[in-house]
């Protein structure tokens, strides 16, 4: 299979969703539990894809570096967020490359950003606590052309769910239960 991606299966799924939109509905969720200090653990909730449940029996730990009052036992929330975006961009890129019949030998993504903790610390209300910008670099080796890779990155920007969650306005609905 080219790039070890089953493009026939993707084609079948795309056509299934074209005919039955509900099969494209994917609901996700996580539960986070504070452990101690800056350390938390996340467990993934079951997904519903179409009309059926997928069991998501995974969990991971989040921490902060010691300089930011943690014990440096795991990546921090910003790194998970960037990793989640990069993972989504990578799978979108690879599936697209396969659809374009491009064999990819190596794909690496770099994402960098700088935020100002003055926002988090409440020292300056003018400062955005989040990342004002993120830079990403695709390192690609394969049998495609420069132009094809550029088109693929345009497609990633158009279609990657996590990229678009960060790029677009998201409605965040909060609630307190105590």
């Amino acid at each position, binding site marked *: *299979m080219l790039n070890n991606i089953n493009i026939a299966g993707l*084609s079948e799924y795309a056509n299934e969703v074209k005919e039955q939109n509900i099969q494209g509905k994917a609901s996700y969720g996580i539960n986070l539990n504070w452990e101690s200090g800056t350390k938390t653990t996340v467990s993934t909730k079951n997904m519903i894809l179409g009309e059926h449940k997928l069991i*998501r029996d995974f969990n991971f730990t989040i921490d902060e570096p010691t300089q930011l009052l943690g014990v440096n036992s795991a990546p921090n929330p910003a790194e998970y967020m960037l990793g989640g975006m990069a993972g989504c961009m990578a799978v979108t890129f690879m599936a697209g490359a396969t*659809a374009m019949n491009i064999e990819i030998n190596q794909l690496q993504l770099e994402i960098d950003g700088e935020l100002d903790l003055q926002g988090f610390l409440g020292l300056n209300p003018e400062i955005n606590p989040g990342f004002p910008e993120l830079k990403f670099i695709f390192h690609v080796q394969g049998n*495609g052309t420069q132009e094809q890779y550029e088109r693929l990155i345009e497609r990633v920007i158009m279609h990657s769910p996590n990229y678009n969650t960060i790029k677009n306005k998201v409605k965040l609905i909060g609630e307190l239960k105590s």
Partner: protein
Amino acid sequence: MKKSYQGIEEKRKEGDIWFNDLKRKRSQGPTLGTNRYESYNESTKAIHAGQYDDPVTGALGTPIFQCSTFYLNESSYEAIEEGRGRDEMIYTRYGNPSQWSVQEKLSALENAESSIVFSSGMAAISTAILGLLDKGSHVVSSRDIYGGTYNFLYEDLDKYGMSVTFTSPTDIEDIEAAIQDNTKILYFEALTNPLLKITPIEAIVALGKKYNVRVIIDNTFLTPYNVKPLDLGVDLVVNSATKYLNGHSDLIGGTVSGSRKLVDRLWPQMLKNGGSMDPHACFLLERSLKTFALRMRTHNTNALALATYLENHPNINKVYYPGLASHDQHELAKSQLKGKNSGMVSFEIEGGDNNAHTLLKLLKLPKEATSLGGVESLISLPYNTSQASLTKEQQKAIGINDGLIRLSVGVEDIEDLISDFDQAIHSIFKKQPNYA
């Protein structure tokens, strides 16, 4: 449509293609391109569906494609690249015309889009379960299921980080209470062994929909002749083909049928577990299936006649048969099986296991052997075969009473079967039978 890129090669070359451009859709099969028989009745389907007549020699009937591998060509290379190897002949574990032929016949009989044949019923069952489960999944099944399936669920799921809860096969509240947050499959048998309880399929399907979980039914004891679980909304149906489907007690095999989408998901699991069916076994199964409806009609009518005879016999304490008004679930049997019932009969003989053993020795026609669904009647005692791992107390707790006998009624002449039982029971009790 076979290829994902059909008609979009130009667009693909230009690099301006996305997933919405891909053309391949799921279709029934895989198929050898034989005629379709969906609109026909059981016997016609059983005879004609899937049969591949060789266009070169004009030989009538599917040849035995006894080969392990196939010439590779442009089309097979393309299929490998695209990941649609199930639709091409590449290697017999992946697919073989003998498999496709019998699979198409099974799909016609099950009203399924797709089927896979396996080297045994347990290969089919374990592949179907593993193929659908995710890491951390849970299965709800019944205590009464076939021992091989029970062992797989009870002894092996653990190793994969999965779990199981066993419930009653008939009590919907009990089944619903066992459903957990990580439950992925409800796995039941359409008719249980050996007490012939009927699983309320439609109620279980409704639970599946309510909790977004899949339903698998093992239909070995009833077969698609007596009930078609897929028509009732079940996701996958599995069978031990060793039993009624083949019907001649001369091969080991299994089947899975369902939507093309789900059966395609089991195919890579089958490749990894390796339980593919040999072409010669496929030939035997396909040939045997031609008489499937014919055999099932006789199994059913013989079983009802024999069950009625046994129920009226003074030395038989109890008869378990869904077609009898005395069966606990006779009303459900009438609606679910539409008067077709089953070829299996269980009964308790007066005098317990001693007399049961004697009866088996005195009978001339039914063979004392495990298994079922053959043209010859087969008879055995559950206490020392299928339920042998349980203590006497445990057996009693699930209704395996002293003297319980399980009978797979064959297609012998019913007069001969009844007179054989008559002489055997008479010899034990040394008195005249009460039937006219």
